[in-house]
């Protein structure tokens, strides 16, 4: 059996370790004191006696609103510590804002402090008995504290006050059902019955309550929530103008429509829009139309973006995704489809390109007015698009 060749004694490894650690300690102390880059400032023991020179206007973004919004942001990003601090700042700025206490309560719940959460929710409810979300939160806090009856009572109050289309009603009802089932099971067990309690269809696990800053999304329900009606065609799909009026592509029946699906956040889409604008000016308006459909989330900002860009061809907004997601299944942006006067898609193109190439414009003209079978004209256009 091989034996170690050099053996310095039992203490040798510990001595070596001690030497190495001493070296490491010295190096660590040296590195701690050394900053190769940057500007080092000692944290002030007290605030400076003189205010920092600051130009007008007065006021920094540290008022109630800023602190409250910051707290909401922290909550949404899963940082309850930051949320509590921000809401406390907001509370000091305005001790009578019920939404601050309500959201403070949710932050305490995230931190696993149901007692503090309960106090916050109760304060919110005391200031404003109509602060609906405070009852939802209070129900959660009481459940966490083991007060089942109190939790059920608070949740019933929430359901009584919350509007019918409140997005959290379902969760509240599910939670209430679970608690009632749990209570019934406990009662049954206490009285000797053996029938198991039914499990709820949806079991909320730490239901996230509504926050005061929740606003209805302008995008509306997604395609997954609103099943498409049978028979939706391209021309029937509901759109909106950028000013918010209902619209559809029905006005383009009888012409070849070059429809571009885009979004402002898509760089190639933005680069392509002026090219489509020039194409719109080059084509015969009796035979062709160019239109765009944006899938951006904020319609009014899309309107402003287009106004800044200065394109003249009509654009629409597909907030519901009926056209772009369900009918066109646009997975790649930009997507341009060429639709014949009867509403059939004859060609599609994924990606951005220059729509003003002479050969392409000629092929489009041919498509509408050329001789020969349509299939041949489409094939020729497809060649130009390659």
């Amino acid at each position, binding site marked *: 059996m*091989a034996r*170690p*060749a*050099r*053996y*310095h004694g039992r203490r*040798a*490894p510990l*001595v*070596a*370790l001690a*030497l*190495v*650690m001493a070296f*490491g300690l010295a*190096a*660590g102390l040296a*590195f*701690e004191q050394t*900053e190769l*880059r*940057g*500007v*080092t*400032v*000692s*944290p*002030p023991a007290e*605030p*400076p*006696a*003189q205010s*920092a*020179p*600051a130009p007008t*206007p*007065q006021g*920094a*973004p*540290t*008022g109630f609103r*800023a602190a409250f919004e*910051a*707290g909401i*942001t922290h909550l949404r*990003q*899963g*940082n309850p510590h*930051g949320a509590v601090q*921000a809401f406390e700042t907001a509370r000091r700025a305005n001790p009578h804002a019920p939404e601050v206490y309500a959201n403070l309560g949710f932050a305490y719940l995230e931190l696993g402090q149901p007692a503090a959460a309960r106090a916050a929710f109760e304060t919110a409810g005391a200031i404003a008995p109509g602060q609906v979300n405070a009852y939802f939160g209070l129900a959660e806090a009481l459940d966490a504290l083991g007060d089942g009856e109190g939790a059920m009572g608070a949740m019933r109050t929430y359901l009584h006050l919350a509007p019918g289309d409140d997005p959290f009603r379902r969760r509240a009802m599910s939670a209430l059902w679970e608690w009632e089932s749990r209570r019934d099971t406990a009662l049954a067990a206490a009285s000797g019955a053996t029938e198991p309690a039914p499990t709820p269809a949806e079991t909320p696990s730490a239901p996230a309550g509504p926050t*005061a*800053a929740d*606003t209805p999304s302008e995008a509306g329900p997604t395609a997954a929530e609103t099943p498409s009606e049978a028979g939706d065609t391209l021309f029937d799909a509901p759109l909106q103008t950028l*000013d918010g009026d209902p619209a559809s592509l029905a006005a383009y029946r009888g012409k070849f429509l070059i429809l571009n699906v885009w979004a*402002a956040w898509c760089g190639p889409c933005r680069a392509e829009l002026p090219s489509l604008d020039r194409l719109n000016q080059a084509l015969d308006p009796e035979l062709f139309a160019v239109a765009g459909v944006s899938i951006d989330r*904020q319609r*009014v*900002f899309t309107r*402003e*973006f287009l106004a800044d860009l200065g394109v003249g061809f009509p654009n629409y907004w597909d907030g519901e995704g009926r056209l772009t997601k369900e009918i066109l299944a646009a997975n790649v942006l930009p997507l341009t489809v060429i639709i014949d006067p009867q509403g059939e898609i004859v060609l599609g193109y994924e990606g951005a390109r220059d729509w003003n190439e002479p050969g392409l414009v000629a092929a489009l003209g041919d498509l509408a007015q050329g001789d020969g079978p349509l299939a041949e004209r489409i094939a020729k256009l497809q060649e130009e698009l390659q």
Partner: protein
Amino acid sequence: MSGTGLKILRAVGSHGATLALLGLMALVVAAGLAFEIEVADWIVPPVAGLLVNLVAGLVGQATLRAQPMLFAFHAMLGVLALLVGLDRLTALNGHVEVVEGAMFDPALAVVEAGPLHPYALDQVAFVQGGFEIRYLPGMKRRETVSLLRVPDGAGQWREARVGDDDPLIVGNYRFYTSFNKGFAPVITYTGTDGRSVTGAVHMPSYPLRDFDQGNAWRPPGWGPERAPVKLWLHLPEPVYDPNTAWTFRKPSNPVLIVIEGEARQELLPGQAAALAGGGQIRFDELRAWMGYTITANLFNAWMMAVAITACLALAVHLWGKFQSQPAGSPAGTGVRHAE
């Protein structure tokens, strides 16, 4: 130690166990590449296992103890692993945007901190001044210089310049300028009660999101049932030409568009408009905001010191080994060392 105990110790500290745990670690990292799992969390178990394996090896493997510098190297690796764990538990990462003329407000910082982090961001004080960012043709960003005013320790303020690799260091916190900066219209809102409050609304990063210079803002006192006011910053003349060199600057003729529902009002600096929801908004001026990355890693210096020291210990060990056993000894004969 009993025979069984020694056997267990040697098994736990064996090369086989080391190899298995290294393999597990590699699987976690590979899964991070392939499936984008959170490697920082999943790697904790194999690292913990390797730490146990290491300690068992240091105690139970005689061949390791017989090579003092190799022993010390491995021990320092264990210290490094512990320091990395401590660093993670006490680290803080975040970001904040500070508008020109404003004091840093920790409440506005979006941060993520380890459970043992000694939070002290409220002790950080600096005021954002102007900043300059230079671009080469082709939108290649060059130097960023941000002027700050910081406490000088004698109750006064002094100027400091930070940017790029030069952070502001206050206590354990480091503030690095990020690539995010943008415009911030300063507005004064006067409520129906006649009280005014002034603040800045940060528009999205510019020029990164030059197509999306809009934000929503809810005036003080407006409840959640009221839709916020939407603000859009219109820049009539381009601030930059991507094909030439340019320096980040505020445009000279901004227009703030105030949108409530479908109604829109255009405001030049100094102009005011009544809000349909109540109150009045005045567009005071356009400022800029600077984005900072905030980090706190309390044990960086020690981790570096331990890592370098460990490497030096290994180098000393190898030097001694190569000197005592010249190259050319056939493998498999002579003395077998634990390596």
